């Protein structure tokens, strides 16, 4: 394949599994339409990918031609609709990659794409009628490619000039926020494909427009750990998101794209899914990668209507064959990388956080409790038990705490409902001198902001090491 004006392309070389030599040999991969270049780069290794010709995208966002993208700590893929040639090199470390060669009939990408265009048609219709665009929820078992699908739909929508409001209800992972949070952000600009979702604002400029998330700290790893708290936080997120939707016509038209954590089939964890559907008036539920979940969800929502009196459509989708298991070790590394990135920036931007010593007395720390076994879901007596004010102790050492938009004088309920202003990391607890050493993104006192401490993300020992 050659393109006049762009020079002849080297013939495709067989993918090499590892390369760690200093010379970093460049491999040329020629992909035909619908093929995917799937790669896994471990932490500490980097992989450079450059689009030489044709078109290619990663999770719905197009690669710029002749621009080198450097990936690290990522398991993902580059796909193409027209065919493309990629130049791949690994300047440091190793990586694993292969080319998947499905046809149009085989790849689930076609379904995703059609889905996008259907959503686009809904958005156009909504725009004309001045109504709210589609509210789409993606559900599926763990490791079925839910987030990738959400990202793809986001990327495609953005490319067509839409501004979808993306909502992450997966408390295990963060979207533009640290794990343990539920967040929302409008995506009107391109997503930095070398990162998960892009980066949040810093004091400096960013080569890829930053996204501004709205973040709430749930602080636990599973919705089931404290379902009442999860729902409370989620409802709060829904209220704010819906207000934005109501006030921002561009966002309203584009609608919502909602990501969820993996549904555990055996536990039948549809409770919070139903809550999400109700709170966000979801009218399209995409079930990816599980017939069982698909049929159960179908049953659950059959005949139901949203609060806007639209029917709820449940669509089953195949999962991509490229979806890989991200084991706990990998995920932990991802979480730690996210925390590190929050304070210190990434390879493109170096951020300087500030350490400061604080008196125990100057802080107001609230612990997010998992639900006690005795508490039943709708039992309001336990309301206050969700948050508990604690004295700083060695327990919070190496933990990440959220700083919330509330006052230390506010009630536990208000604090629980408040959104996250940022995070601090507790580097050291000196119980004798009653002092804490904390790392904050901004060099400033925390004033009268309360700090929330949950068990998720897990303590990270190595941040300042």
């Amino acid at each position, binding site marked *: 394949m050659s393109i006049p004006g762009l020079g002849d392309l080297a013939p495709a070389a067989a993918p090499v599994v590892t390369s760690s030599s200093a010379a970093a040999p460049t491999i040329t991969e020629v992909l035909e339409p619908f093929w995917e270049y799937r790669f896994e780069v471990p932490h500490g290794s980097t992989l450079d990918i450059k689009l030489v010709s044709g078109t290619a995208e990663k999770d719905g966002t197009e690669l710029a031609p002749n621009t080198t993208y450097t990936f690290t700590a990522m398991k993902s893929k580059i796909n193409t609709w027209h065919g493309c040639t990629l130049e791949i090199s690994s300047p440091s470390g190793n990586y694993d990659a292969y080319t998947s060669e499905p046809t149009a009939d085989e790849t689930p990408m076609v379904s995703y794409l059609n889905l996008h265009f259907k959503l686009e048609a809904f958005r156009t219709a909504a725009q004309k009628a001045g109504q709210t665009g589609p509210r789409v929820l993606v559900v599926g078992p763990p490791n079925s490619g839910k987030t990738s699908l959400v990202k793809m739909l986001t990327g495609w929508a953005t490319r067509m000039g839409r501004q979808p409001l993306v909502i992450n209800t997966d408390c295990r992972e963060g979207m533009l926020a640290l794990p343990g949070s539920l967040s929302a952000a409008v995506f009107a600009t391109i997503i930095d494909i070398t990162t998960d979702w892009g980066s949040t604002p810093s004091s400096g400029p960013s080569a890829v427009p930053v996204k501004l998330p709205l973040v709430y700290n749930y602080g636990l790893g599973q919705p089931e750990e404290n379902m009442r708290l999860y729902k409370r936080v989620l409802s709060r997120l829904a209220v704010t998101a819906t207000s934005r939707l109501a006030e921002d016509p561009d966002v309203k038209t584009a609608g919502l794209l909602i990501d969820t954590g993996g549904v555990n089939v055996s536990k039948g964890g549809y409770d919070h899914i139903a809550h999400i559907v109700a709170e966000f008036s979801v009218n399209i539920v995409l079930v990816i990668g599980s017939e069982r979940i698909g049929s159960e969800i179908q049953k659950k929502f059959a005949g139901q209507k949203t609060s806007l009196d639209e029917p709820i459509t449940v669509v089953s989708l195949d999962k991509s064959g490229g979806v890989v298991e991200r084991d706990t070790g990998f995920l932990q590394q991802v979480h730690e990388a996210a925390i590190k990135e929050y304070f210190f920036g990434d390879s493109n931007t170096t951020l300087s956080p500030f350490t400061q010593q604080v008196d125990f007395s100057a802080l107001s720390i609230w612990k997010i409790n998992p639900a006690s076994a005795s508490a039943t879901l709708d039992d309001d007596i336990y309301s206050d038990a969700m948050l508990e004010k604690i004295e700083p102790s060695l327990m919070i050492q190496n933990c990440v705490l959220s700083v919330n938009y509330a006052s230390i004088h506010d009630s536990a309920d208000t604090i629980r409902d408040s959104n996250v202003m940022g995070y601090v990391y507790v580097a050291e607890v000196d119980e004798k001198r009653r002092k804490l050493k904390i790392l904050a993104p901004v060099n400033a006192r925390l*004033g009268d902001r309360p700090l929330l401490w949950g068990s998720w993300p897990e303590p990270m020992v190595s941040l300042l090491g």
Partner: protein
Amino acid sequence: MSNESESEAVAQDFRDALEDLQSFDRTEISTLTVIARENTEHAHAISGALQDHIKRVIPQKKLPALYVLDSIVKNVGTPYTLYFGRKLYQTFMDAYASVDMPTRRKMDEMLRTWKGPVAGSLDTRPVFPPDVTRPIENALIKARTAHLQAQQKHQQGQQQLLGRSRPASQGVPYRETPTPPGFHPPSQANGYPAQPPVPTSSGPSYGSSSQLPPTTYPPHSSQPQPTRSTPQPTPGLMAFHPPQLGGYGAPQAGISIDALNNDIQRLITASKAQIALNPHDPSIQTRLKALVDLQTILQTQNLPQDQLVLVKNQIADLAVTIKAPPSQTPTPTPVPQPQPQPAPVAVAPPPTAAPKVSLDSLFGAGTLAALMARNSVTPQASAPYHPPAPVAIHTPPPPPQPKPVEPKKPVTTHPPPPPSDPMALMNMLRQAGLLPGTAPASSSTPVSHATPSNSFPVAFNIPPTIPVVQHVRPSTLEGLTSDIVLRASSLKQFRPQLLPFLFESLGPQCTQCGRRFPKDEEGKKKKTAHMDWHFRVNQRIAEAEKRGQHRSWLVDEVDWIKTREIVDTDYVAPSGDSNSASGGSASKEPQLQYIPVPDDPSLANSVCSICQEKFETRWLDQQQEFVWPDAMKVGEKIYHASCYKEAFKDGGNTPVYSRGTPEPVTGKRKAELDDERHGRNDAHAM
């Protein structure tokens, strides 16, 4: 950032701007010159980018790019002359080889100017030293001789070469040539490789079409020719009958659309020639645009007779005013664009240029509106004006995978804009630039057919059609997606006709981030703003690295709800930059007064010391930080700028520390000082 990558970034910007260079737009050329001037430290990269560009682009775009080179060497001079000089022979000759005759004349002229000093300059040295220009001249003389000989041979039994024939052969009218020049990129006749004229996939259909004109021609030339009654600029022009219009030659009673078309085509040709002569005259540019728009309308819409009369009269008037270009122009200059041939297929909405503006400038205000209004009222009139002939010839190349064809799709004799639907027409107009937004909402079938997965390289190969095609969206996305049902089986069906909506229809990519921008005016504006933004951000990144950065606090719920995403529009705040603004900013309308949101959370809830109201937090994309608009800091107190002005307007002597012009650096330092103070306090407290 290393110098190399910076150079690369600058070159990238430059390259991108070049991509947009369509014609002889003076402002574009001078913008590029300014960029080159301001980045002389990256001259090597820039000159490399420009040389590559000249080499790479289609013949029609070479001349504009050469003008850029010309402008840079004349206005900036060294070091560019040095860099360009090295490869000038190659650059020039490559381009010369692939362009048509009128363009070559331009290039000859250009070369001539390079041999002397810059006009009006005190420097008496030639633009390029003789040892650079002489080899080119020698080569050209040789080539001309050879060409002339070849020419004579060809004339005996051959046709093809007319497009670039020397004046001697100009008398030969095109209609005697089996293959009208319009079908061939100029390069072909020269035996230069260049691009195949048509996408390979559509080879057969185009191939046959190029054979057709001889047959369609006779009726055309025997037509009653109101054409002739129009004042003819030159005999040369008269000789030129755009062959592609021949296909439409259904003779009409009254005013023939074809005749009008011919007239317009001739005027377009003449205008192009004028542009070529005088590339810096925006008025010709405007006129050309208007003509092209009008041509499009005529070819795709059907206007009642009275409207045609109006148009015809205007055309006649115009024809008088357009001066006959010098004798070399009879050759149809394929230079700028409108290969009118694909037009009937592709061009529904007047392409890109906000047609209202240009048409109005040409025919007086409201003309277009009148035409359109008329048209939407009498949509049915369409049929007779579209004889089946064009279909045979111009049906877009069949889609590579003619999958499920939608019932709605115009597979038909009608040009894509469904003429029976006034709404669709208005929509198209909207997309053509009369109304912003909604662009992706709808798009073209036939066109998308031509371009989609046809495999990419091919798409690159059909420069003449692509530009016209790209922003044309005769049928809507809604129509195309109506058969998609939210069920697994329906979703699994691949619909290649949809793909262009995410790719080609969106326009070419930004080379820095991969975003696509339409090629219409709106898109261009956006892209310029976008490139500005990249440029500024890159600059600021370099600055920021020295300064040290930190993560910002997020906003609270209320501010988040109030936030509006900023895409491009706000990038167009040219005064924000310290390097460019210092002079002009003072005279401008009141600037946005703001201060960065204090990092200190205890200050973050500050209220205006005058009105006691909270400040509103906004994300200022341009500065990439959160700010309080309409805020100012006086000493330690923060006020609403408006409150402060109100309160202190009489006492002009109050020392005011305001940050009218964005000065992120000082602002930041201020904030950081505050922070440090707090930090020290903490330290003391220990």
